[in-house]
């Protein structure tokens, strides 16, 4: 356990295709209602052959929902702002608190959706128009600065981008900054909007399923893309005690490792996954035997689920705790997945529930493991592992524990 005090989670905010706040997300999970469907808002040639977990809220509506003001707010920023405001409110942070807090956000695509939409206009300096507000919002670092400006955070603003493990790393680094004494309060997470760039990139890698994804199933064929955002509010133990706050959970541990196997594929023996999970557990001083639930990365690609499943078996041997992938509900939200699934992990802990891993029928022959397939209630959940693995071999795992 850390000598410098624990890092508490005192609030969260989330928006996905299954709900625009935590309460709606929870209800959807309990009702087993997923967000997989037609692509309506984003204009893409693939709306005929692919489905995604798109958030059925237009950018204009998101502006109203998030209270975003001014220009240059991309959909990624607006989604992030919606979730961030909920987190701020949930944790009871005042404007004064925010000026002293840090923001660590993450995204893989940033404002690429707007950039691709007005590509030729933006690159022709003779042309002028509304699109100019999005000329320089493509890069990931932009959205964090906008978010910080919209909610009034100035002390510390950083952006991470490690593909699908991004938000988990943002949470991990926020906790590190708190333990080091640099910050007392950090808002950490990620945001991702759907884009043609991502849809076509993943399609070119041939890892999309044109049906609803089936994590950990023998017949799985790939992932579904989704969009969304989520943030955790992390506060130091000293601050929580001083302000007599009631924390929701503890960010007990975090592990970051690299598979070092291939630019876009995970190693078949789950090396990176295993290392990240072990690091998170040892960091938190928790034994594998005390883990009550694992929210797997579970993208339903042939490669990930086999690799991650192998890592799970190596870590837990015959005592594999209940596990699922929540990606059939939300789609793979790329950078935001780490924080969205951290919120789900906290909800599981708070409500003693594990939701079924949808579309599972037959175990992967090499593994023989089965995720949870019906709603489990009244569970005693004290320790949750949440995995997020990305391109570039980035493997991260968060350990979230009851207070």
């Amino acid at each position, binding site marked *: 356990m850390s000598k410098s005090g624990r890092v508490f989670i005192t609030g969260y905010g989330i928006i996905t295709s299954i709900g625009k706040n935590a309460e709606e997300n929870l209800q959807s999970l309990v009702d087993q209602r997923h967000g997989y469907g037609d692509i309506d808002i984003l204009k893409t040639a693939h709306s005929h052959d692919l489905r995604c977990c798109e958030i059925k809220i237009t950018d204009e509506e998101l502006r109203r929902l998030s209270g975003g003001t001014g220009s240059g707010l991309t959909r990624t920023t607006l989604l992030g702002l919606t979730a961030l405001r909920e987190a701020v409110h949930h944790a009871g942070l005042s404007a004064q608190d925010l000026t002293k807090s840090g923001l660590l956000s993450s995204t893989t695509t940033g404002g690429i959706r707007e950039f691709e939409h007005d590509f030729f206009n933006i690159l022709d300096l003779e042309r002028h128009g509304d699109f100019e507000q999005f000329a320089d919002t493509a890069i990931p670092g932009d959205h964090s600065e906008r978010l910080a400006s919209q909610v009034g955070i100035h002390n510390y603003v950083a952006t991470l981008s490690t593909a699908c493990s991004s938000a988990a790393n943002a949470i991990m680094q926020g906790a590190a900054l708190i333990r080091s004494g640099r910050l007392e309060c950090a808002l950490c997470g990620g945001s991702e909007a759907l884009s043609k760039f991502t849809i076509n990139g993943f399609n*070119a*890698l*041939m890892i999309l399923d044109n049906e609803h994804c089936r994590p950990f199933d023998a017949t799985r064929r790939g992932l579904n893309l989704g969009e969304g955002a989520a943030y955790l509010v992390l506060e130091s133990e000293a601050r929580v005690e001083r302000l007599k706050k009631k924390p929701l959970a503890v960010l007990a541990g975090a592990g970051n490792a690299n598979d070092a196997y*291939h*630019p*876009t*594929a995970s190693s078949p023996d789950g090396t990176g996954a295993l290392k990240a999970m072990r690091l998170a557990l040892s960091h938190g001083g928790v034994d594998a035997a005390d883990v009550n639930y694992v929210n797997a990365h579970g993208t339903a690609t042939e490669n990930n689920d086999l690799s991650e499943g192998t890592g799970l078996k190596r870590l837990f041997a015959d005592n594999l705790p209940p596990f699922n992938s929540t990606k059939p509900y939300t789609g793979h939200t790329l950078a935001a997945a780490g924080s969205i699934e951290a919120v789900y992990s906290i909800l599981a802990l708070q409500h003693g529930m594990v939701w079924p891993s949808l579309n599972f029928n037959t175990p992967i022959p090499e593994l023989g493991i089965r995720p949870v397939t019906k709603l489990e209630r009244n569970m005693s959940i004290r320790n949750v592992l949440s995995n997020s693995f990305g391109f570039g071999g980035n493997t991260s795992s968060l350990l979230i524990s009851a207070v």
Partner: protein
Amino acid sequence: MPQTLDELKQELKQELIKQLNLDEVLPPDFNENTPLFGEGLGLDSIDSLELVVLLDRNYGIKLKDPKEGRQIFQSIRTMAEYIHANRPQA
């Protein structure tokens, strides 16, 4: 006149060099039977995806499952034979 198998093999070799930047990597004894993946040229799964696209763009053949590529892309010869047998008639 439809393309002969030999002409196709020559064309494929040039296409591969161009598409996969193989200029400085081709071993001197490279021939139509040199294994493209693993030992031999050492191409990997990303190259395999490039070849799937090449099959589609240049020869109108769509592979649904990338795993089919393993057999087809073993060598220039196997690629040429597959294309020759499966390309849509002009």
